[in-house]
């Protein structure tokens, strides 16, 4: 191709690519949401591998350290048997009539990074403290509530909050808690602890809360 033609094609190509930035808003100050931070993947195996649907199942999320929680004395389940999110949940009917105690684990609220459901290593001891209590109080069950900050749409946040609660459920099931004792629900962005619009407020709102469920009297 002649040089002049080549250059004009190149310029046209560049102009075309610049023109088609229709959706990239020219406003400054727009922050691209970083990809959610998940653990560096250990290779999945067994039921954790691709379960069809044409979608690669991301590997189990044991925390950024990539290692399993060590306090597994009561846990006889091998790692490959733990399903994502702790597997199937029990029936809601099983907890109807139980009394919720929202104060018991108030000190164990777990916080999450933006757009992430990774249970950070700094939070592990809190989850394990919940697990230890549940092992002692064998007659109780647990509800885990997942929450988000306001920087997602309502339905996106409703799903993300659930993903956070499920990550905590999975941790507890690995820790040896029977999956039928642990339930999850998401409140999306509906119930912030801090209504502010600052990084501090948002950090407080991205959380999982543990609610002890006491048997009917």
């Amino acid at each position: 191709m002649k040089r002049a033609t080549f250059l004009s094609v190149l310029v046209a190509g560049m102009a075309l690519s610049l023109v088609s930035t229709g959706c990239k808003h020219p406003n400054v100050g727009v922050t691209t949401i970083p990809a959610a931070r998940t653990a560096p993947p250990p290779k999945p195996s067994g039921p954790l591998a691709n379960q069809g649907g044409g979608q690669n199942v991301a590997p189990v999320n044991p925390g950024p350290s990539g290692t399993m929680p060590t306090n597994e004395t009561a846990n006889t389940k091998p790692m490959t048997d733990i399903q994502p999110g702790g597997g199937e949940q029990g029936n809601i009917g099983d907890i109807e009539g139980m009394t919720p105690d929202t104060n018991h684990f108030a000190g164990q609220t777990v916080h999450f990074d933006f757009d992430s459901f990774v249970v950070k290593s700094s939070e592990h001891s809190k989850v394990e403290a919940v697990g230890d209590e549940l092992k002692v109080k064998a007659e109780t069950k647990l509800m885990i509530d997942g929450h988000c900050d306001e920087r997602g749409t309502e339905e996106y946040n409703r799903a993300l909050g659930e993903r956070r609660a499920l990550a905590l459920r999975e941790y507890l099931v690995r820790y040896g808690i029977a999956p039928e004792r642990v339930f999850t629900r998401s409140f999306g962005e509906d119930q912030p602890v801090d209504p502010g619009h600052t990084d501090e407020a948002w950090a407080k709102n991205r959380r999982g809360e543990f609610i002890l469920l006491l048997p009917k009297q």
Partner: protein
Amino acid sequence: MSLSLVRPLLTAVALLTLAAALGAQDDEHITIKETVTGTVPPILITLAGYSGEAATVLKFDLYVSGFKIVGESESPQYELKGANNDQVEGRLTDAINKSVKFAKAFSGGTTRSQAHALANAVIEAVTGAHGVAGTKVAFKVKTGAAGGVGEIYVADYDGYNATAVTHDGAIVASPSWVPGRRALYYNTYKFGNPDIILHDLNTGTRSVVARYGGSNISPAASPDGRQVAMILSKGGSPDLYVANADGSGLRQLTRTKEDESSPCWSPDGRWICFATRMDGRRVLAKVSAEGGPIQRITANLGINPTEPDWSPDGKQIAFTSQAGKFFRICVVPAQGGDARILVDGEDPAWAPNSRTLIFNHMVGGRQVLSLLDVPTKQNKDVPQTVGDSSQPSWAK
């Protein structure tokens, strides 16, 4: 001139050329400013003889359907001349073709409903498509009480005649109309858990569709009303499921470690589009309603897409792009391609005409419903608001 004007400018040039070739409208009415704001210029029309509420309704209805009300001095192609004494009536004339398109009068009901009917008559006579003036929408209203509680409301598409259809004082979310029926699916926390229920608005009967362990969220009625798609986490991850309209016959369509959200159906009922993550990036995807592999829908330049809605004519998918704290309504061809930003806002829902979108955006600290005509990008907030309103669904 900035590069972002190049493409719409090319469109303007094309339109001018076309207009000259047809010997149609005056060139000076197709201004660059108007074409830059949309891909199609608005249809110019003059109104004469209307006052008060009838005039206000006519102007709003026509504007959000792609018309622009101008003065006679601008010599528009169309004129609607009439009155609103004890009935709303009008005669639509076409100055180019020198014809009377219709002469109609509407009585009964209210002034608003008569004016809506006249607006629809204009829209149909000019564009050939059914108007959507006065059609119904459902949405969520946060009452401001602690805990994020709210109620589901139904109203005219302009916010008038709003009625609460729930009185539970619970968290509610994502209403979805059942096509052809006065019934809604929605998510409620009334029973202590995020559950999906079906609410017959005629009888007031409510039935539980999904109350599994975990969260049951984001219901979407199928176009034939016989099935419902939803996001359930009972299997350990928020996945896409489909069931019969009453919740029986549950089938799981996705089985991923990621969180699927916001399902919507293709108008032929064959596909379900939803938001998910693939290869570390937030994307739109679709899966056959019968089950099968997940296919990504490319939406170039539509950052972090969520809350998709498929147009009734099957051609476009509207969605919310999340970029930091900015939310933007975008559209992309249904087969994938380049996304177009339309306006700031969240949670778009298509009208039956496949050109008007309803969505919500923040005004003065609360969410307000707003209407957008996609081809002209003409946009107006609904004139009547009910507190903090979001998550609209358009009745079909």
